[in-house]
């Protein structure tokens, strides 16, 4: 029944009319198009009723023609509320400032804790952090997000394995794990070097040890290549324990062979972003979203949406209202048609890449040959044969042949 809101905004005054037949004054007002409501008779000589503030002057004019006495009782509504607030200005301003200060205090970083590294490292990390803008008394919003800081830190300190940043209220907790240099006693202590793969040896650099094979020898997987036993001792010799053993260290390159099959479709569809971005902002309250900016922008025919959330949190409590930004990025599907030659070229490149990825950087492809090439179902199938030069020294210590 009560429809207070719009009326309250206008400002209402309770008018008290004193005189004989006070209700007639209200009737008089109504006749002059002044809305009056909630009229109550208090006594024979008194009557109260509500009117709008804006009508007060007109009512005063009307009163002059009559013999009633008017007084204004209650004042309600926004205009009066504002007036009252003006009196409380210093209080309000101080409240506002206090709130701002409170926001600042809660949204800042006051403690940076670094765990898991030496104090020397801590010092250096905290200096680096302050270079990134992570300092005591900095507002969280103005800093990079934790994952960005993590990435930067890992970039700048190659010997860090992992950095975990947990923004916990006003403190930033960094958990740092340094890389443990893998102990390499195995390599140093290795006395025998075995072949990793079948191949024909093309180059040998024996730094330590005695080589048992020569260039252009065909070796099999697991064959002994270099030994640390400097003296040639028969296995059945009694003084096996006396055998002089030293380290073996060598780089042995051999030519090896690989077969690879790839199939390349002649038609390909992929999507590219056109660079057109519509940013739409929403105010998210719970699961309810209110669009506030950019809602008039029309959607693209093909688009992909990235959503970012900006939240405010006090300690563990996150304000349930967050700002959500949807980036609508326009994409266009691009269809490419390849000729057979092109597909072959791409297939070869792909096969090469795959091979090099598997074998490591030291590998070089000496020769490649297409054994078989067929086109079916819109695909080009290739069977490629590679001749590769690679290091066949077994990096994994094997307990074999001893």
């Amino acid at each position: 029944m009560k429809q207070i809101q719009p009326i309250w905004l206008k400002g209402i005054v309770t008018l008290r009319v004193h005189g004989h037949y006070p209700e007639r004054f209200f009737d008089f007002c109504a006749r002059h198009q002044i809305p009056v409501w909630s009229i109550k008779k208090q006594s024979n000589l008194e009557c109260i009723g509500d009117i709008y503030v804006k009508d007060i002057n007109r009512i005063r004019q009307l009163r002059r023609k009559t013999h009633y006495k008017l007084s204004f009782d209650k004042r309600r509504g926004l205009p009066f509320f504002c007036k009252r607030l003006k009196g409380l200005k210093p209080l309000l301003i101080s409240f506002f400032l206090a709130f701002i200060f409170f926001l600042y205090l809660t949204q800042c970083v006051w403690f940076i804790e670094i765990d898991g590294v030496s104090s020397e490292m801590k010092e250096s990390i905290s200096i680096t952090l302050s270079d990134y803008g992570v300092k005591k008394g900095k507002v969280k919003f103005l800093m990079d997000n934790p994952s960005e800081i993590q990435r930067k830190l890992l970039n700048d300190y190659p010997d860090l394995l992992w950095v975990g940043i947990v923004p916990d209220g006003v403190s930033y907790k960094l958990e740092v794990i340094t890389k443990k240099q893998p102990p390499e006693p195995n390599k140093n202590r290795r006395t025998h070097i075995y072949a990793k793969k079948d191949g024909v040896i093309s180059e040998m650099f024996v730094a330590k040890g005695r080589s048992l094979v020569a260039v252009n020898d065909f070796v099999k997987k697991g064959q002994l290549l270099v030994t640390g036993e400097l003296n040639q001792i028969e296995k059945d010799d009694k003084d096996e324990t006396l055998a002089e053993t030293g380290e073996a260290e060598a780089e042995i390159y051999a030519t090896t062979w690989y077969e690879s099959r790839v199939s390349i479709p002649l038609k390909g569809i992929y999507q590219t972003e056109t660079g057109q971005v519509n940013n739409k902002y929403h105010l998210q309250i719970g699961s309810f979203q209110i669009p506030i900016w950019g809602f008039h922008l029309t959607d693209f025919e093909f688009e992909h949406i990235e959503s970012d959330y900006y939240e405010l949190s006090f300690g563990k409590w996150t304000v349930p209202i967050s700002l959500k930004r949807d980036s609508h990025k326009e994409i266009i599907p691009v269809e490419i048609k390849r000729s057979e030659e092109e597909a072959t070229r791409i297939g070869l490149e792909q096969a090469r890449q795959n091979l090099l990825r598997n074998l490591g950087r030291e590998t070089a492809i000496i020769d490649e040959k297409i054994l078989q090439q067929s086109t079916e179902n819109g695909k080009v199938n290739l069977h490629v044969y590679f001749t590769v030069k690679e290091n066949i020294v077994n990096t994994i210590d094997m307990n074999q042949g001893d």
Partner: protein
Amino acid sequence: MRKLHALFDHLKKSKPNMTMTKHLNLPRITMIGDIHVYIENHRGISRFTDQEIGLNITNGQIMIKGSNLVIKMLLSTEILIEGKIDTLAIIESSTKDGVKK
């Protein structure tokens, strides 16, 4: 209040009655239970206490009796009365010619 307004609007719009009241200048009285009375086409308040309200109409008076009567809204020809309404009486008075209708 909004529902009431909607109801009144609806009543106002109903055409056949409209012409009648317009021509005859008769008051239109709408009552909702015994808590509301809405009167259109009145000609001013003659008396008002919280027990009794007298309204002038074209040829006479409307007397509303009840308790805790409050005028919820007052416009030049419309009035909305709220309270506990007991009786509503129409008292016809003689016109200027002295002819009783």
